[in-house]
């Protein structure tokens, strides 16, 4: 492996890699997605199968392609995990989805040997119900604006050479050559980049404060503790383009004068940790990380710290405590980490996606960057979309895109038989927005006015079958468990609020409970010490704001969506019952009584409302009241 010693050498190396990459995309190469989603569906086995097949053909001397050429590449998430595993064949650009092991041979014979597409594996665009040869032709692809996820499906996630072939590390070299940290900060300030971790603090200002803070040692930290249920864009980004994040951290370190960095990644993301570890190793071997990088006076070292499963560690002060090897308990700010962070030294802490934006801003300039998005929230944002929509996964859109565009144009609308009721955005600290707000442009400020926040960027679509009180209960269950317990409003308040919501879902809610819930939610929001407690009541406040009628219905003894089992009552229609006794045999509690040949009946006291009898009955004799 080559070691780069000067900036000129590095520039030359990048030029070489650019030419190599151009060639690579014009030649036959197979990209297999190994992101968590595809890997769970067996993509790693498919990758291995392709490798074996190539070895075999080589041995049998029926190898039609030039030898000694490694043509099977690993690529990171394409964002369409629901249709994985993905296999992309260049130079044709065919996108195959839901590939199985048995398809490998056919892809080899048809596409690699003859250059034809395997029709049945091509992606079906839900918008037109037509198969598309290239992903670029699909509507969901056109409706997005890929910026952080440029070259989707055509970049190797575990290769530094491929990243450099895409012009990677050029921004870092540019910053090194110019040697003007203030200018870098000015560019980032002008670009209007706001923190992608959710709160949206202007990144340039954060950098400036950290740079101007006095300290012998300074640190850069990457926040990859994505604990929100329903959010996985940081994981995707680390899996598909770890070098972009690393380069952002390098630029940050150089700008503020730090020599040490920490990447805090959840231990639940083994693939992301592995990819980032490899990225660091490759950069070290090439001489982009270490002592006196490329002959300059700048030295930098970086370590991965694995999170051990605590949602609160996404809060910056808690994360820093965790890096120090302590319990992840937040502390009041100020002093901000920018003034006194790790071991009391000035620390720059940004989200994974924020760092990934940096090299691109340096590359394109602030003005070009601002062309995307809206004036107050420039740029693009990755969102993860889940729930009953036709296409789930990761998307990237400009700020200012509406929820309607995301759900209907990109995700193909709701699954058959489902109607949209609400959209939950921003994880447990976000809010449920009603259908009336679908045309709200998504950006930091507009969401704030609606009582929501961009938060992590998780979007969960909720159908008419979902009970909003249950959704609020679910999030409170999560936040009460994840509260660190340091301050009373959050520790005790969330617990009490959760109990009230539980009462509602168990058909025991009253008007007094509703009043208490409103009071509590407001109090927790105002009195909690950190971001977790301050935002945890958002699911309650937003459901009370847009779906208060559901709470009232629960008091009146009805769950409108039919989700809360406590409101269900199963009974047997004697006119339809044939007396076969199947239901009685399936009942785990022996609540169904009767004799064969005659209508059975359900004893309500014993019934636990599990629905087993309902599923078993062939005559639709069991009814839910």
């Amino acid at each position, binding site marked *: 492996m080559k070691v780069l010693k000067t900036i000129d050498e590095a520039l030359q190396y990048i030029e070489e890699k650019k030419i190599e990459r151009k060639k690579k995309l014009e030649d036959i190469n197979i990209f297999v997605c190994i992101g*968590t*989603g595809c*890997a*769970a*569906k067996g993509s790693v086995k498919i990758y291995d199968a392709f490798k074996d097949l190539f070895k075999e053909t080589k041995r049998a001397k029926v190898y039609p392609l030039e030898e000694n050429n490694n043509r099977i590449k690993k690529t990171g998430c394409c964002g*369409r*995990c*629901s249709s*994985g595993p993905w296999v992309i064949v260049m130079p044709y650009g065919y996108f195959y989805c839901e590939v199985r092991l048995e398809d490998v041979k056919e892809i080899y014979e048809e596409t690699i040997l003859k250059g034809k597409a395997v029709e049945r594996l091509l992606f079906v665009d839900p918008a037109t119900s037509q198969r598309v040869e290239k992903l670029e032709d699909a509507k969901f692809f056109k409706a997005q604006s890929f910026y952080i996820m440029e070259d989707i499906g055509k970049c190797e996630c575990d290769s530094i050479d491929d990243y450099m072939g895409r012009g990677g590390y050029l921004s870092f070299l540019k910053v090194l050559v110019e040697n003007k940290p203030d200018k870098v900060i000015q560019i980032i300030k002008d670009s209007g980049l706001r923190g992608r971790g959710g709160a949206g603090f202007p990144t340039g200002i954060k950098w400036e404060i950290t740079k101007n803070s006095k300290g012998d040692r300074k640190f850069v930290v990457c926040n990859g503790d*994505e*604990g*929100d*249920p*329903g*959010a*996985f864009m940081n*994981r995707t980004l680390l899996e598909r383009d770890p070098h972009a994040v690393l380069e952002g951290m390098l630029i940050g370190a150089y700008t503020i004068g730090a020599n040490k960095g920490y990447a805090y990644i*959840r*231990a*639940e*993301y*083994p693939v992301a940790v592995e990819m980032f570890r490899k990225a660091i190793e490759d950069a070290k071997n090439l001489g982009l990380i270490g002592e006196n990088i490329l002959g300059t006076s700048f030295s930098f070292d970086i370590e991965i*710290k*694995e*999170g*051990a*499963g*605590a*949602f609160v560690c996404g809060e910056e002060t808690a994360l820093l405590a*965790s*890096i*120090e*090897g*302590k*319990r*992840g308990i937040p502390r009041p700010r100020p002093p901000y980490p920018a003034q006194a962070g790790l071991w009391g030294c000035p620390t720059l802490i940004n989200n994974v996606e924020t760092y990934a934006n940096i090299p691109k801003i340096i590359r394109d300039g602030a003005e070009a960057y601002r062309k995307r998005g809206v004036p107050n929230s420039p740029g693009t944002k990755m969102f*993860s979309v*889940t*729930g009953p929509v036709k296409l*789930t*996964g990761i998307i990237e859109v400009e700020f200012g895109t509406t929820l309607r565009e995301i759900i209907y144009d990109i995700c193909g609308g709701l699954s058959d038989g489902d109607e949209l009721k609400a959209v*939950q955005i921003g*994880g447990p600290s976000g809010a449920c927005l009603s259908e009336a707000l679908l045309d709200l442009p998504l950006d930091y400020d507009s969401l704030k006015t609606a009582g929501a926040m961009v938060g992590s960027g*998780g979007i*969960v679509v*909720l159908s008419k079958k*979902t009970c909003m009180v249950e959704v609020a209960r*679910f*999030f409170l269950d*999560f936040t009460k468990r*994840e509260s*660190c317990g340091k301050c009373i409003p959050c520790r005790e308040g969330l617990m009490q609020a959760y109990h009230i919501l539980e009462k509602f879902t168990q058909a025991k809610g009253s008007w007094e409970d509703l009043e208490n819930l409103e009071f509590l939610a407001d109090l927790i929001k105002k009195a909690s010490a950190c971001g977790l407690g301050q935002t945890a009541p958002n699911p309650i406040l937003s459901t009370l704001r847009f779906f208060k009628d559901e709470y009232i219905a629960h008091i009146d003894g009805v769950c409108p969506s039919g989700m809360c089992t406590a409101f269900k009552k199963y009974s047997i229609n004697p006119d339809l019952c044939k007396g076969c006794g199947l239901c009685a045999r399936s009942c785990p509690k022996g609540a169904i009584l009767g004799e064969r040949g005659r209508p059975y009946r359900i004893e309500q006291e014993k019934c636990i409302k599990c629905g087993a009898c309902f599923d078993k009955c062939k005559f639709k004799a069991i009814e839910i009241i």
Partner: protein
Amino acid sequence: MKLKRNFAKVEEILKKHNYRQDNLIKILLDIQKEYRYLPEDVINYIGVALDIPPAKIYGVATFYAQFSLKPKGKYTISVCDGTACHMAGSTSLIESIREELKISPGNVTEDLLFSLDQVGCLGACALAPAMVINEEVYGNLTPEKVKEIIKNLKERERKNESA
């Protein structure tokens, strides 16, 4: 003699992390990989080696969801209860595992073969409902599929034993 051998392993892990206090979480993660939980005597040993009071280590171990002070099974099943999985019916998966293994979340089977945990989001939302068994992700599950997977693992263990 067994104890000695164990601590040699602990020493190895401590050495790998340069006996640094700030690496405590990494050390505990590695210990847990080795023993499948955090044994009390190992916690005491680390306390002495790193000069951290065992109570503090205990505080860290109880704070993070990943750590367990009780033995875990050879196969640790983590059923995801993130938003998407919850809406897609993760509760029914837990129920079917409970039926199959006779354990509830947070516990381990008597033969120390399986332990069950209900975890926050695994980040595999597009595959909801999902679960992880020893770092292998299973997606788009149904209660029947879960039973099938567990039965297969049991079968594999039986074969290993007889072999």
